[in-house]
């Protein structure tokens, strides 16, 4: 197998907590994206037998065609990577990961005999335990028993993929997806004992948006997560300083009020008197400990809780700047200034816009973190949001797969190289 073959067949798989990004190197900048979820069909039902549905799991864009009642949805729809970690014995979750992987690879596997499998670069959370690596390699082997899809595979942590895509060997990566946030200092390799994980991401902001929608009279609609997510993305704002932003919104309601029409429906969401709550959505990502959120917790909104998965703690309420500082301060003193001087924000949870006219009070994620660090006396931090933060992990997979020579074998002690799975 030649180096030239490998370069043509590098394939990236980014197992995000909400979205699964995949595709070969020939896609250029933007991978294919489907939701990281699967739906277990009730195969015993009469209708599925009449309709000739003989699959156990549906993944990808076909899922909506198979959905049953809302009650069934909760039981049958599985989001395997909600926390970035899958328990070793969670068979349903692993089945979905296998099905998603198969879906991705089969979508691009050429039919001709020249094809001997992709060189797969998979990326998972930096806090993933070793058994997840072993399990993924096993999935690639199992898929090959049905049809050759993977020649060799390697697995890299998501923050490292971001650093690779940015060609930055020394930095701090803050990767925030739907389910969690990983803060990972990198000095050539991830500094694993300095990693801090937060048990919140875009999903936490969704939960708050849901409460805001309920208060605004859209309680019925607020039960559907895709609707809530859309509203969050369209109306949510990150305040530069929350208290000032709320004061501004109350004295300039015409500038902050919003009316959102949901495409393809007759639904319109209007926030008029309550427009100030738009700033709460962004604030919650960074600082859920602000006293203003207490009333939501009191009324039953779930508080992001501290959880332990394996050896890893996921902190629920730690504010983002505190997490960055705690993580960096676990590294050597000599290294710390370098880690503050290049903080990369990556992941869909950092894609926030500032509408025209609100620049005074609303900011993007990098400015917000800078402000919070300043409040904790960290001056001179250089923070940037990577280009297309949602895709930066997949892009890092491409750069890594392209660079690593095809004959560089996997080594468990370094967790790098190609594992032959064909």
């Amino acid at each position, binding site marked *: 197998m030649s*180096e030239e073959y490998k*370069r043509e067949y590098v394939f990236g798989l980014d197992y995000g907590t909400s979205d699964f990004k995949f595709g070969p*190197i*020939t*896609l*250029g*900048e933007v991978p*294919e994206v489907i939701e990281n979820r699967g739906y277990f069909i009730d195969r015993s039902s009469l209708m599925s037998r009449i309709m000739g549905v003989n699959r156990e799991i549906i993944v990808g864009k076909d899922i909506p065609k198979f959905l049953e009642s809302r009650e069934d949805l909760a039981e049958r729809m599985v989001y395997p990577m909600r926390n970035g970690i899958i328990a070793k014995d969670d068979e349903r979750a692993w089945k979905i990961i296998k099905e998603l992987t198969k879906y991705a690879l*089969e*979508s*691009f*596997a*050429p*039919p*001709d005999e020249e094809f001997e499998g992709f060189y797969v670069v998979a990326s998972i959370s930096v806090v993933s335990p070793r058994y997840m690596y072993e399990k993924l390699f096993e999935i690639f082997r199992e898929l090959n028993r049905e049809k050759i899809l993977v020649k060799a595979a390697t697995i890299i942590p998501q923050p490292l993929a971001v650093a690779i895509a940015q*060609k930055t060997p020394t930095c701090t990566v803050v990767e925030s997806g739907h389910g969690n946030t990983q803060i990972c200092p990198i000095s050539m390799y991830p500094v694993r004992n300095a990693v801090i994980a937060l048990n919140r991401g875009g999903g936490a902001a969704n939960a708050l948006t849901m409460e805001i929608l309920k208060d605004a009279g859209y309680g019925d609609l607020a039960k559907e997560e895709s609707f809530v997510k859309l509203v969050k993305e369209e109306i949510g704002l990150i305040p530069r300083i929350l208290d000032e932003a709320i004061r501004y919104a109350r004295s300039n309601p015409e500038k902050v009020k919003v009316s959102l029409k949901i495409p393809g429906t007759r639904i319109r969401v209007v926030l008029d008197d309550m427009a100030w709550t738009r700033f709460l959505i962004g604030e919650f990502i960074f600082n859920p400990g602000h006293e203003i959120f207490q009333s939501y917790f009191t009324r039953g909104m779930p508080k992001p809780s501290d959880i332990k998965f394996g050896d890893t703690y996921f902190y629920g309420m730690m504010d983002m700047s505190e997490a960055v500082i705690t993580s960096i301060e676990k590294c050597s003193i000599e290294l710390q200034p370098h880690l503050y001087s290049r903080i990369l924000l990556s992941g869909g949870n950092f894609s926030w816009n500032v509408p025209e006219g609100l620049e005074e009070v609303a900011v993007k994620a990098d400015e917000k973190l800078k402000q919070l660090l300043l409040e904790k006396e960290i001056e001179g931090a250089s923070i940037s949001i990577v280009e297309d933060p949602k895709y930066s992990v997949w*892009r890092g997979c*491409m*750069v890594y797969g*392209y*660079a*690593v*020579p095809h004959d560089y074998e996997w080594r468990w002690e370094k967790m790098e190289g190609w594992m032959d799975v064909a």
Partner: protein
Amino acid sequence: MEALRAAGYMFEGNGILGGSLKAEFRAASLSGDEVIILVKSAEPDDLRSLLSLLTRECWYVDVYYHLRGEGAQAAAKNLGMQLPENGVYRSRMRFSDVELRVEAYPRLAALTISYRAGWKEVNSGAVVKVHEKILGGGNRKSALNRLLGWIR
């Protein structure tokens, strides 16, 4: 990189700028003998200038276009091919004396078209003709997706 600089291209981080061309260095092999350049936008003539320069420095350049949705359908129509409904299809066709490799991914409504360019394809003007055939003659500002350069 030196050749690009000598030819008047500007660099901003990984970005390469020259006339209407906006591109960036995406990746390089560890041995340094290959590089990926991602072309984000370029008028056909500026693309030809870039390829002309690269083919003087490299053994060959593999040019890739990846198109999705309506762009893929339009390109297939321009090339006179019918997109299949299922599976993954790979075929070859000749246009302007260049062998094009076409890969269709119907499940994703996507199409990848690639060919290998050398000095002959650049000097004969085939590079511009292929570009316009794939992206449509009137769409001279459309983005190319990717170039792979094999450096000598």
